[in-house]
C-alpha cells in the first residue's frame, strides 16, 4: 500500500513529546517503508502543517501545552483533512468520545500491539488516498465545467432535466439547430458521450438533494 504515499508531501506525521516513544514509532513505521515526519509538540506540527499534505497523523493525546485533542480541533478549524489516529494512555469512554468528536478517525489505547498500530496506519492512509482521489476527480470535473460558455451551461442545465431540444430552443429563444450545436460542444468539452454519463459526473460534483 506504500504506493499511496508516492506524492512527495506524503508521510505519516508523528506528534509525540516523548522522544523515546517518538523515535521508536518512527523506527517501526520506517521498518514498514513508510515515510515519517516527526514533531515533538503539537505547536511545531501545526506551524508546519500544509493543506497539501497527505498521509495521516499519529498523535499522542497526553502532551504538555497543546494536547492531542486540541491539535485535532485546530486541524478541523484550519480545514486540514488528514486522517488522524489518537494514542491514549487510558482508553476511557469520555476521552474516546472526545477524540472522535474532535475528528479523530481512530484511537488506539496504550499499551498497543505494534502490528495493530501499523494496520491502523495503513487503514488511515487508504482512507486518505480515497479521499484525495475523490477530490482530484471533483477538481477535474469542476475545471471542465468552468470551460463551458454561458450558453453551453444553460443548455446543459436543461438537458440534465430531460428537456427535449425543441423546448430548450423555445425557452432560450434560439433555433433547434443552434441548440444541437451547443449541446455537441458541451458534451465534447465535458468528455461525455451520453447523457447518463453526464448526469453521473455531475452528481459527483453536486450530490443530489
Amino acid at each position, binding site marked *: 500500500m506504500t504506493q499511496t504515499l508516492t506524492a512527495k508531501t506524503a508521510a505519516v506525521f508523528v506528534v509525540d513529546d*516523548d522522544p*523515546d*516513544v517518538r*523515535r*521508536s*514509532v518512527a*523506527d*517501526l513505521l*520506517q*521498518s*514498514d517503508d513508510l515515510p515519517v515526519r516527526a514533531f515533538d509538540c503539537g505547536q511545531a506540527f501545526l506551524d508546519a502543517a500544509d493543506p497539501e499534505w497527505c498521509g495521516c497523523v499519529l498523535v499522542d493525546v*497526553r502532551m504538555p501545552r497543546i494536547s492531542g485533542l486540541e491539535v485535532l480541533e485546530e486541524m478541523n478549524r484550519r480545514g486540514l483533512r488528514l486522517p488522524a489516529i489518537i494514542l491514549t*494512555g*487510558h482508553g476511557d469512554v469520555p476521552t474516546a468520545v472526545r477524540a472522535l468528536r474532535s475528528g479523530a478517525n481512530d484511537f488506539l489505547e*496504550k*499499551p*498497543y*500491539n*505494534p*502490528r495493530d*498500530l501499523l494496520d491502523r496506519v495503513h487503514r488511515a492512509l487508504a482512507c486518505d488516498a480515497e479521499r484525495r482521489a475523490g477530490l482530484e476527480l471533483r477538481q477535474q470535473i469542476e475545471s471542465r465545467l468552468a470551460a463551458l460558455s454561458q450558453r453551453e451551461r444553460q443548455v446543459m442545465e436543461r438537458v440534465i432535466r430531460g428537456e427535449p431540444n425543441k423546448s430548450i430552443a423555445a425557452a432560450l429563444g434560439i433555433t433547434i439547430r443552434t441548440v444541437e450545436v451547443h449541446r455537441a460542444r458541451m458534451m465534447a468539452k465535458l468528455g461525455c458521450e451520453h447523457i447518463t454519463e453526464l448526469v453521473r459526473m455531475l452528481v459527483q460534483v453536486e450530490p443530489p438533494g
Partner: protein
Amino acid sequence: MNMAMPPESAPTPQPFLSHDLVGALPEYVVITRTDGRILWINRVPPEHGPESPIGQNAIDYVLPELRESYRAAFRRATESGTPQEVDVAWDPPTGAARMWFSVSITPVRDGELTGCFVLVARDITQRLRLEGALRDAQAQFRVHFNSHPLPTFVFRIERDALIFHEFNTAALPFTNGRIAEMIGFTDARLWSDDPPTLDAIRRCARDRVGVRHVTDYRMFTTGEQKRLCLYFAYVPPRFVVAYVEDLTEQQRALDALRQSEARARSFFDAAIDPLWDLDLVHGSVVASPSQYRLLGYEPNKIDLSLDRYLSHIHPDDLPTVQAKFDACVRGEQPFYQSEHRLRTRDGQWRRIVARAVVVGRDEQERALRMVGYDRDVTAEREAEERAQRILAQHDHLARMSSLGEMAAAIAHELNQPLAAIVNYAEATRRRLESGAVASDELADRLAEIARMGQRAGDVIRRLRAVVGRRASQPAATDLNDTIRESLALFEPEARLAAVHLETALAPDPGRAMVDAVQIQLVLLNLIRNAMHAIAGLPEAERRVLVRSERCGATLRVAVVDRGAGLSDEVMARVFDPFFTTRPDGMGIGLSLARTIIESHSGRIGAERNVGGGCAFWFILPLLGGESRQVAE
C-alpha cells in the same frame, strides 16, 4: 406711635409708653437702629452681666448659626412692613445656660424712629426645655413599648367603645404582620365571638383596674386557634394596654403529658415492646402478649420460664448475655442491657435490645424480681447496616479513585517506555524478517530496548519515593490510640463480615513521633488483609487480633489472623510493589506500608503463626525521656 428720639444724637430715647409699664413686661423690648445697633432696651436680662447692651449690634446676641434666619426675618419685616417672628438662641457671656427667645421684629415706618426696628423678645427657654423632656419621655416610652417581649396592644377609651389604637413590634410576628390592618377596630368587633374577653377589657376600662383573663381565641388575623392569657392594664388618662401571653404550647405540653400518663396505665397490656417480669426466686416469667409473639408463641399458651427464654438466645451471644445479666442481679450494674440475637420458634433470627432492672431485693440484697423489655431492632439494624454498607462502598470508591488517579499516572509513565520497547522490538523483527538489517543497527535497537527497561524501573523507584515523602506530619502519638481508631473504622465492616476484632494492647505504649494518619493507613492495610485472609473460615474462627507490645525503646504492633497463612514464596514478596495474591488487588498496600514504616525509622515484617495463619508486624521507635524527633 409717637416716639421722639433722634436717630444719632440722643442716646436716651423717650419712652413711648410709660417707662415703668414697659419695664414690667415679661418680654424684652429692644429698639435697634437700621444698622442693628441697640438704641434702647426696656430691661437687661440678669444673665447678660453688668455691661450695657446699648450700642452693641443686636445680631451679636444671636448664635452665629442662627444669624442667617435672623437677617432673613429682618429683610422680610423691611419688605412687608409687618412684624416677623424668628427664634434665636443666645449664649450669655456670664456662662449661664443657653437661652432661647422668640423674637418679633417690627420696622418703624413713621416718626423720628423711622428706619429703626422694635424687637420684642420672649424668653422661651423654659418652654423648649419642657418640650424636649416630654419628647425624651415619649421616645423612652416607645422604646420600652416596642422592645417589650410580649405582644402588646393599646386601646383608646372612647365614650362607648374601646378603639384599637396601636401595637408594639412583638405583635407583628404574633399576627403575621396583619395587625396593622386592624387599627381603629372597636373592641366589640375584635372580640365579637368572645364575650368573656370583651367583658374583661371593659371591666378594666370602667373600673380602672388590672384584669387577667385566659381565653381560647381564634386569631382574627391568622385564623389559628390559640390559648391566650391577656393582661389588661388601665393607663391614665384614657388608655387600656393589653399584654398577650401565648399559652398554646404550654397547653399542648400539658395535654401530651396527660395523654402519656393515660398511656402508661395501659402500658403492660398493650405493650408494643415485649415486656417481661421475672421472678428470680422461682425462675418464672410473666410476659406481655408481645413478648410471646416475639418468640413465636401464642400469648399465655405456654409456661415461659427463664430457662426456656435463655434457650432462644444465640449460643455465641449467650455467655455475654449471661455475664451482663448476672452483673445486674448481683447489683454490680444498675441495670441490665444487652444487644443479642434471639431465635424465634420457627427458626428466624431477630436482633433485640434488652433492658431490665431489679425491682425487689430481700434483706441479704438478693434480687427477687426483675422487670424489663426486649425490643426488636432487627429492621433498624438492617437499615443501619445497609446504610453502612453504602457508606463503606463510598469510602471504598473514594479510596479507589485516589488510587485510580495514582494508577493512571503510573500507567502513563510505564506505558511510554513499554510502547517504545514493543515498537523497537517489532520494527527490528520486521527488518530481520526481510533480511535488511545490519548488525550495528540491531545492536542500537537492543540498546534502546534495554534503556527503556531501565526507564520503566525508574518509574517504580520514583513512585516509591513520592509515596514515602507525601505529607508527613509527625507528632508524639500514643500508638494504642491509633490502633483503636483504626479498629473503630472497621467496626461496621467487621460486623457485616461477622469478624471478631480483638486487641491486646501494651499497658505502657509510650509515645512515638509519627504521622498518625500514615500509621493508620498501614494498620488499615494490615487489618484489611487479615480480614481477607479469614473470610472463608467458620464464624468462630474469624478473629483478628491487634496486639501492641513494648520492647525496650520500641513498640511492636502485630496484626494476627488465623487464616490460611502464606507460602514461603509469597512471604518473600508480599512487600514488593504491585505484588498481589488477590484477583482484585493492586499490590500497592503492603509496599506502601513498608515505605511508610521505613520512613519512620521502623521495620515491618510478616511471619507465620505457630498455630496457623500469619502475623504482620511493625516496630517503631518510641520517644525517650525528652521529646526527640525520629529521623524523617
